[in-house]
């Protein structure tokens, strides 16, 4: 499967709907400090099921909702969608495109959706099971985190092998 697009709506500093088209092999994202690059990384982690608000730099899940700026009021909901190309039918679903969505409202109530239909996180984990994707593991290396890979305890390192197996 390959990733076609990441859509952010009301997620952190992305108040306006933003589509990040990922239709090539290597995409770089650049910009000034504080412009929102790591927020895109957080969005991917989040939609893949990240459970820890702390890993997303907040204290509660609702902290990912656009909190307002000096010129714009805060929003009441955040959502992130991954659009996958499924033309090789690697995912256990029909259709050339598969979407995975996660939403949260300001009361912290969340929802997961596959192809627009409400589901549980478990369904998403099952769907992605053989693809090697998941919000754990080593496919997403956060800012400042490359060093901690080396400093992992021997049993923590072993877990990476078990996930890859």
């Amino acid at each position: 499967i390959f990733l076609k697009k990441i859509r952010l709506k009301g997620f952190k500093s992305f108040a306006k709907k933003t589509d990040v088209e990922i239709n090539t092999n290597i995409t770089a994202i650049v910009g000034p400090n504080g412009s929102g690059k790591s927020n895109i990384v957080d969005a991917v982690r989040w939609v893949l099921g990240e459970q820890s608000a702390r890993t997303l730099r907040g204290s509660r899940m609702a902290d990912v909702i656009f909190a307002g700026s000096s010129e714009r009021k805060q929003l009441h909901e955040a959502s992130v969608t991954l659009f996958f190309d499924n033309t090789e039918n690697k995912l256990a679903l029909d259709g050339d495109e598969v979407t995975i969505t996660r939403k949260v409202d300001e009361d912290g109530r969340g929802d997961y959706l596959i192809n627009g239909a409400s589901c549980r996180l478990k369904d998403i984990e099952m769907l992605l099971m053989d693809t090697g994707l998941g919000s754990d593991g080593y496919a997403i290396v956060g800012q400042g985190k490359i060093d901690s890979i080396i400093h992992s305890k021997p049993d923590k390192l072993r877990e990476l092998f078990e996930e890859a197996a």
Partner: protein
Amino acid sequence: MADLFANTFIKVKKEFSQIFRELFSGGRAELILSEPDDLLKTGVNINAQPPGKNLKSLSLLSGGERALTAIALVFAFLKVKPSPFYVLDEIDAPLDDVNVTRFAKFIRRYGEIAQFIIITHRRYMMTEVDTLYGVTMSESGVSRLLSLELNEKQIEEHITARKETG
């Protein structure tokens, strides 16, 4: 269960030693089982020795050397069990300019196996990619994404652009 682990370990171990030598133009590194007689419980340790150096302790390596060693491990796993995409947030921060360029060329070859989304501040990374996006906050506190042409001029303008504030 132990077989699956052993199998994966052997493959990743081989890739890791190879990729390390490639990133460092020499030296040697190995993944070592902490308890080789107990495959169910053993942990995994990293030994790394950049070229010409005589030290075994990972902690004595420099910031850039540790980053490159970690990169070798991530890519060793990638070759054995690739994820469809990788998101790497400023992992080039501790690298000097030469290593950034080498890492950028290195990633190019893996573009066949997986998709990469790379966040970076380093110019030598920006020139080796297929697509370049700029994130900007021209409206305070609100991020916007722009497509950037992969030419020096647009990259330069985006890096130096700042909203004019008081």
